[in-house]
């Protein structure tokens, strides 16, 4: 199914006059392209019959939409209080070290984006790390080298 067709399938789930499919459409586009470039935003806007400016106004509001390129793997470390008091900062620093980039950045080889994220909703199982949008719980700093090595193997 093309992106256009997939977006039409999302639109069919909502009343015809609504714009409710804009978030599902952006998610589909991002899954296909990795990030939401101006060209991709235009493609989404055309499929939804709205303006690119409207689509951008939505994409820029939500943290999960990437308006700049990101790495092949997304590593998001929760640093809110419940994870922080059980060592989230040490876990974050281990990922920064292994991936070779600071939080908020992408590694030079394009493999990894590492960033901190607000509460992921796994507080009792900290430190919670979302890796390519799936949770790893109770992550300890000494596990990080192996996690990163496995991700390199996946590529």
């Amino acid at each position: 199914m093309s992106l256009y067709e997939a977006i039409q399938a999302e639109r069919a789930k909502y009343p015809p006059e609504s714009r409710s499919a804009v978030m599902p459409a952006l998610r589909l586009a991002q899954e296909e392209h990795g990030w939401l470039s101006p060209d991709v935003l235009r493609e989404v806007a055309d499929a939804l019959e709205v303006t690119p400016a409207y689509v951008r106004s939505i994409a820029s509001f939500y943290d999960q939409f990437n308006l700049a390129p990101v790495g092949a793997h997304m590593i998001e470390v929760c640093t809110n209080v419940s994870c922080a008091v059980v060592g989230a900062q040490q876990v974050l620093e281990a990922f920064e070290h292994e991936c070779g980039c600071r939080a908020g950045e992408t590694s030079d080889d394009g493999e990894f984006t590492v960033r901190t994220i607000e509460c992921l909703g796994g507080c009792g199982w900290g430190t919670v790390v979302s890796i390519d949008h799936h949770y790893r719980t109770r992550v300890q700093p000494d596990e990080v080298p192996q996690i990163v090595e496995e991700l390199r193997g996946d590529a």
Partner: protein
Amino acid sequence: MATPEIVFANATTSYAEYGGYTALERARAMTPAEATEELMASELRGRGGAFFPTGRKWSFVPSKEQLPKPHYLVVNADESEPGSFKDNEILSRVPHRFIEGCLITAHAVDCAHVFVYIRGEYSGPYEILVNALEEVPKDVLGGVTIVVHRGAGAYICGEETALLESLEGKRGQPRSKPPFPAVSGLYAAPTVVNNVETIATVPPIIAMGGAEYAKLGVPNTRGTRVVSISGNVVNGGNYEIEAGMSMHDIIYGLGGGIPDGRELKAVVPGGSSTVILTKDEVDVGYDFDSLGALHTAMGSAGIVVLDDRCCIVQLGIRFSEFYEHESCGKCTPCREGTRWLTAILRKLEDGRATQADLDLLLDVCDRINGKCLCPLGDSDAIIVASYVAKFRDEFQAHIDEGSCPFGGASSLDHVLAPVAMHTHAPAVPA
């Protein structure tokens, strides 16, 4: 849910294991008004945090004769309150109990369209829920459509009107109320918005009868509650308790107490937005009235346990950074004030603050509180003011000593929040 924590992976109950939707059959044998009566009799109050009586909320929906528009049920699965992770596990472990609750509620409010707004980060629960929906036979759905709508990272969308805006394909910014969603909600039509745990509590209420359910718990807080325990505690996890259980027993019994021989310092009783309790205040019933007497609340039932290594100024910084990051920017007091609170707290932590800054901190709290469309900014103001009220000596020490009294040994030292990432060091050279 009555058993202590089970890690959510690999623990999903299938449709066959769940044993059919018998409570739904029972509800559909009733009129919508009778089903609503059962909820009224149960005295169930909303589990998202606002604690509004569920049956009453349902009863506010006008009939289709009064207002000829489609009715909607919107389930709030945008769980993002720091310290709260119960809906994550409910959706993951008992998706069919949740779906049955959706269908009973749809019957009670005469609606054929259900939207579940699930936070974008919950890929695991989303996949489990979608798979579970595919297992439900068509005749059981009875013509009701359930659409699972994924968020994309915005705490504010847990506020019900912001959620509705987001679901309509707009930026997630709260609406002014009235009109309330029961009359003009999704697509300006009558809408009931309920939390995941509330919906998952509906099937047992119908199965056992509202009056029977109301025998559990204590006055004003009937039934059970899923509490999320996290932080400096041995057995973090979700536990279903009977309302009114002592918080001391929750922390030391279910939670197993404080690890590594440390001392308890403070507890955030109901998610980040609730007034903090000191170690001398935890011998309190976990219910609306008992916590209300201490000017705090159950909120979303996220109990964050903090040991004696926690610098309270740093706690204020980290939660303020959260609210600053999540402010939608619509109301000036919240948009500007949350930033100010972070900045003044940072000045205190760095030892650059004077006595006037402590006064200014509380003044900013006053200038946020009650002056916005939604409670996001209020939450930051209320908790920071509570930290000062209950730990004033520690704030004073930061001023008097010109540095943090923990001297770099706090459990929250140097923790990097998303809102601070842009000020972080540049890329490591290749």
